[in-house]
């Protein structure tokens, strides 16, 4: 049996590898490489004389400034050296100098300012392949689940996103953790259908676990965060739908996340169906009169602020009961939405 040649999209893209292996064929905006960014920033600073001539550049400290490993820094130095902007000298590192330029080596502390960069903004962040596609895939799946049962065609998804299988599976696994995708052994990835049963199951889990988690998590919460939440909930003008949605998400995210049992927190974070319905509904009908859950939210936060964690847990229980009724009503409304145009990697099952 001959081994199949991997398709270009299946090739691993080690951004820190040399140009020949770096998979630079994609969108230049998306595919920028760390060493290239470092080279560009240093080059600009040297050309514009924001770096003192003769400064000694060392891989380790420069990597620290950029928040990367030493490998891309080393490659950037090599390229700048080849371009004639850095020189080697009798010592470790490179000198900021052109060939033949007589300069004294300046061994200064290497921070953002010394490198001619804006302080606090020097760190570079390049999303990984999986980070790059996560949001779009999550958004698409959140929409698809309204319209029934779908299987995810891995090959088509890899082609659609121009990523390899490893990166795609990493994202899908994260979506499994959040309850948006199902996967059983040997079975294909499937979009979890948004159903009344799934919503009710999430609320059953939340009702059992969330108040208990809040009792434990409550004493560990940051007072500044609670003060901010109280201020927003008690603002003279009631929060708009989107703001209230964010505040409600806090009830299930940040407020419970301080529980020391990470397995428990993970289970709670899997209960995403209620928020999917609520956020979809709010996006579609921003003017809709929500049943008044604002007061329920206030009661939870006020009790936490007062340090009365039992009262907070009870208020959370009441809030969940109301939120469950609301989700059941909202789910029915979604039945009128015309079916969205979905990408080819989502294959309808019927």
């Amino acid at each position, binding site marked *: 049996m001959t081994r199949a040649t991997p398709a270009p999209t299946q090739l691993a893209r080690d951004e820190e590898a040399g140009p020949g292996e770096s998979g630079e064929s994609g969108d230049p905006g998306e595919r920028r490489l760390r060493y290239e960014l470092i080279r560009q920033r240093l080059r600009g600073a040297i050309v514009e004389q924001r770096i003192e001539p003769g400064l000694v550049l060392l891989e380790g400290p420069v990597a620290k400034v950029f928040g990367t490993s030493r490998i891309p820094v080393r490659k950037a130095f090599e390229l700048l050296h080849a371009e004639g902007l850095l020189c080697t000298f009798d010592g470790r590192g490179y000198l900021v100098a052109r060939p033949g330029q007589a300069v004294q080596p300046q061994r200064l502390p290497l921070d953002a300012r010394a490198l001619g960069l804006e302080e606090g903004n020097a760190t570079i962040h390049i999303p990984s392949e999986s980070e790059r596609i996560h949001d779009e895939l999550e958004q698409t799946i959140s929409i698809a689940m309204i*319209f029934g049962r779908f299987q995810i065609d891995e090959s088509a998804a890899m082609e659609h996103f121009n990523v390899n299988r490893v990166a795609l599976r990493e994202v899908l696994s994260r979506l499994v953790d959040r309850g948006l995708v199902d996967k059983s052994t040997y079975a294909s990835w499937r979009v979890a259908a948004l159903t*009344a*049963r799934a919503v009710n199951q999430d609320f059953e889990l939340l009702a059992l676990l969330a108040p208990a988690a809040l009792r434990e998590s409550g004493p560990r919460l940051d007072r500044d965060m609670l003060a901010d939440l109280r201020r927003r909930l008690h603002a003279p003008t009631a929060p708009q739908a989107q703001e209230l949605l964010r505040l409600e998400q806090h009830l299930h995210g940040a407020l419970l996340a301080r529980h020391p049992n990470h397995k428990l927190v993970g289970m709670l974070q899997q209960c995403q169906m209620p928020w999917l319905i609520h956020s979809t509904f709010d996006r579609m*009908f921003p*003017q*809709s009169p929500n049943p008044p859950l604002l007061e329920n939210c206030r009661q939870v936060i006020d009790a936490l602020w007062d340090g009365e964690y039992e009262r907070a847990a009870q208020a959370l229980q009441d809030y969940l009961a109301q939120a469950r009724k609301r989700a*059941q009503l909202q789910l029915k409304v979604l*039945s009128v939405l015309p079916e969205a145009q979905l990408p080819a990697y989502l294959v*309808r099952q019927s």
Partner: protein
Amino acid sequence: MRKNMPELRVLGTSVTLTEAMRRRAEQDLGLRIRFEVLDGFDAQRQAVMRQDSFDLYDQWFHSLDCLWPTGALQPIDIGRLAHWDEVNALPKTGRITPQAALGAGCNPAMRLYVQADGTLGGTPASRISMLPLTHNADSFVYLPAAVPELFAQTEESWSWLLSPACRGRAALQADAAIGALDAALALQAGGDMRFGDISNLGLEEIDQMMALLLQRQESEQFRGFWGNYADAARLMIDAGVAIQSHWSPAIAHYRAAGLDYRLACPREGYRAWYGGLGISSQARGDTLDAAYRYLNWWQSGWPGAAMARQGYYISNPLRSREHLRASEWDYWYAGLPAAEDLRGTDGQILIPRGSVRDGGSYEQRLGHIAVWNTVMDEHNYLVRQWATLLRRARPL
């Protein structure tokens, strides 16, 4: 008519938005009235997604489950309704008589009153969601001569819709809140399935039902799925359909085409529905005043009589009785044999002398409800699965 009078835009279906009703309302009220007529599901979708496109929503109570949470409608003040006290027990209590079966599913009484928290419920309050108006107990229509070996049975049954004897000659209403219930009633009546609650199917029940219906589809049981009574009539008159879901105004077409049709009184009970008028949440000032006048006009007698002549009941029937001949009242409401030929809304003879309405009187028919048209808990899932059936259907 003054040119600066507000124009009322009424969104609904062809069963109540007839040209005769529009002209009479304009004449009686001195208003400009525009009807936007769509199939039921499309009207519901438009009301939800284009909330500025209408002033009045003329539709079914079960569709409130999709409208009310979005804020598309505003509560109706009972104090501004001229004939509220005349509205009978059915929409207020859910039963036409205290002894009548409640019927499963979206009973209008459970979504009539606006509760203190803004949601809908059955506890009486000073504000309502929609003004209850037209309603009926529906079943199916069939041509006795088309499949005599089946249709000669003494008791009519929903199971006939799925009988192999009707292969290629059956049709269903296309809205999942209606047609899927006809299909469920048929599957249950034929012994193919037994539902825990036919008005609130579980996921497995929906999957099993759809698998069975897709099998029937593959064996070409269904000639089509229709969205309005005109399409239904065409299927039966021109496309060889012998049995299908029924909407009452279609009988005028059947009669005009000379079809020897029969309306079933299924032993399993009727599928009931309740219609009414809701006011857009955006209606204000003169438009709102005009909307209330239009609501009160609907209960003023003549409209209810016009609806009776196409087979529909009105929520305050006694006022409409004054606008009906005794023979018309006796046939349509009392379940008595027609004492003379009765004319339909178009003035043509619709009911020959001696005919008796299927199921009997108003109280008998509305007391024999198997299920109401329904938006169930898993309605979104049902709609998406039902769409697969529609996608594979033959074009009308």
